[in-house]
């Protein structure tokens, strides 16, 4: 069955507000209901790409288009992109003092979400991201994403700072609440630890602001990276698309 493109990024170039080039011609297509993984070394532009998709004003798109659900996102505010069905789980979410997580979840939830909140009962009344453990931060981000009921959920380094038990818990919820319900998922990961738990349909590698290679089999990519490191991906004819 042929699936429909949900996110289409063509020839995207972007800089920071200070003018530093960070995205240099990214092409990316994510289809509806599919899981896409983006691997890459530190500083390759993966997280920046995620934030650019969400319209973070820290970055400027200087060329190219981001199309989501048939609509061009360029120039739209973050909140409008969220309303179209995008959501992001931050790697390092900021503390919002004086705002308990429960309050934020109630604001952003369209429907009664109390049952889902129970898994975060230990920190629901604490301020958003204030003194959260690594696991609590990831769970808080995940709950916020679930509350938004997105069409495409982007996870920025969901496996960083998580022990194996928490990683499995997180992946179980993502599989049950998002992937099995036909929500598209983009997972950005440096280590790739979460991939075997999410089994992506497509995996690519980003190096120096470009997506340089990709495969439908994430194991091939991980095997190559583990053997040669990320630098080798640039020149790898076997995986080049």
């Amino acid at each position, binding site marked *: 069955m042929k699936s429909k493109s949900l996110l289409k990024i063509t020839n995207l170039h972007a800089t920071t507000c200070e003018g530093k080039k960070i995205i240099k011609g990214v092409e990316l297509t994510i289809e509806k209901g599919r899981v896409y993984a983006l691997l890459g070394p530190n500083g390759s532009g993966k997280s920046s790409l995620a934030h650019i998709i*969400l319209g*973070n004003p820290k970055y400027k798109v200087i060329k190219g288009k981001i199309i989501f659900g048939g609509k061009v996102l360029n120039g739209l*505010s*973050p909140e409008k992109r969220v309303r179209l069905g995008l959501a992001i789980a931050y790697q390092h979410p900021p503390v*919002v*003092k004086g705002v308990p997580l429960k309050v934020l979840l109630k604001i952003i939830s369209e429907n009664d979400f109390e049952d889902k909140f129970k898994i975060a009962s230990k920190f629901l009344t604490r301020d958003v991201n204030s003194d959260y453990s690594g696991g609590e931060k990831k769970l808080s981000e995940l709950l916020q994403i679930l509350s938004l009921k997105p069409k495409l959920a982007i996870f920025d380094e969901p496996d960083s700072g998580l022990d194996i038990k928490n990683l499995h818990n997180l992946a179980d919820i993502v599989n049950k609440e998002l992937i099995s319900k036909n929500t598209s998922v983009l997972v950005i990961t440096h280590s790739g630890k979460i991939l075997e738990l999410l089994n992506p349909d497509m995996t690519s590698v980003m190096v120096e602001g470009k997506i340089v290679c990709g495969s439908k089999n994430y194991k091939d990519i991980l095997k190559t990276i583990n053997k040669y490191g990320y630098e080798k991906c640039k020149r790898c004819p076997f995986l080049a698309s």
Partner: protein
Amino acid sequence: MDMKNVNDAHFWQVDHRIKRIADVKQVEILPSSSAWEKYSWSRKYFGEKPLEGYFVWVKEQPEIPLQTCVNIVGRNIKQKFRNLLIVEEGLKIELQGFCGNIAACFKGSHRASGNIIIKKNSNVIYRHYHSWEPDNVVEPNYEFFLEENAKLDYVYKTTHTPKILSVRNKITCLRNAKVSIKILVNCQKTQFFTEDTVVLKGEGSSGISKLRLIAGKESSIKAYSRMFAQSASSGHLDCQSLVTDKGSTVKLVPEVVCDNKEAQVTHEASIGKISEEQLNYLRTRGLTKEQAINLIISGFLRI
């Protein structure tokens, strides 16, 4: 306390007219002028016979929180309150005071001064809420006196500020008395002046004073927060302000003075803008820029 539930108030005044004084068994509540006449000892606090205001004498442990409510609804109303609250020894009370407009009104003023005497071993939680229309002048000015082992947890919060707001508090703590004072004000087109002074007079006394002030829409803030340690005591001042408008100015002046080598008093102060990182984070949760700013401000004022 909700402004809509004025019928719960034990003392309720609108403009210059007392609408209600509730009968509470353990507490004597009178207009200040009546108290001045009935109790000669009260004159050392009142001075001249007050024109208006309330006298609340908590003699025994009340079963419910005490509530006062003072409103302005008419035009050109000039209130001048003189209040006296006395809490007898060993009691634990909660007090909620609400002052504000309940209709759009103009050129009014609300000036209130008073004394709050908290006797030995008593514990008072006092929440003082204000909400005003822009075209008013408001000046609360209170002196708190905490006897030995007394405790005071005082919060003054204004969410809707008048054009001129001046808040003064002086707290004197005797031996082992403890005070926590929080001034939380969201200034919008307001000239705001505040001065809080904590005097740690008795050995073992302690005080924490926190200011959280928002400078929005052409506001001017001048805030002086002082802690005087006159004995082996400890205190801390924490002054923070957020500037949300280009046309606003803020001056925060914490001052700690120590007259005893066994005392420790510290302070911190900061003035900043709303964090872009927080703002963008909330916008990626679907909140508009304005909603995100309002949520950050409400969180800043919630301590």
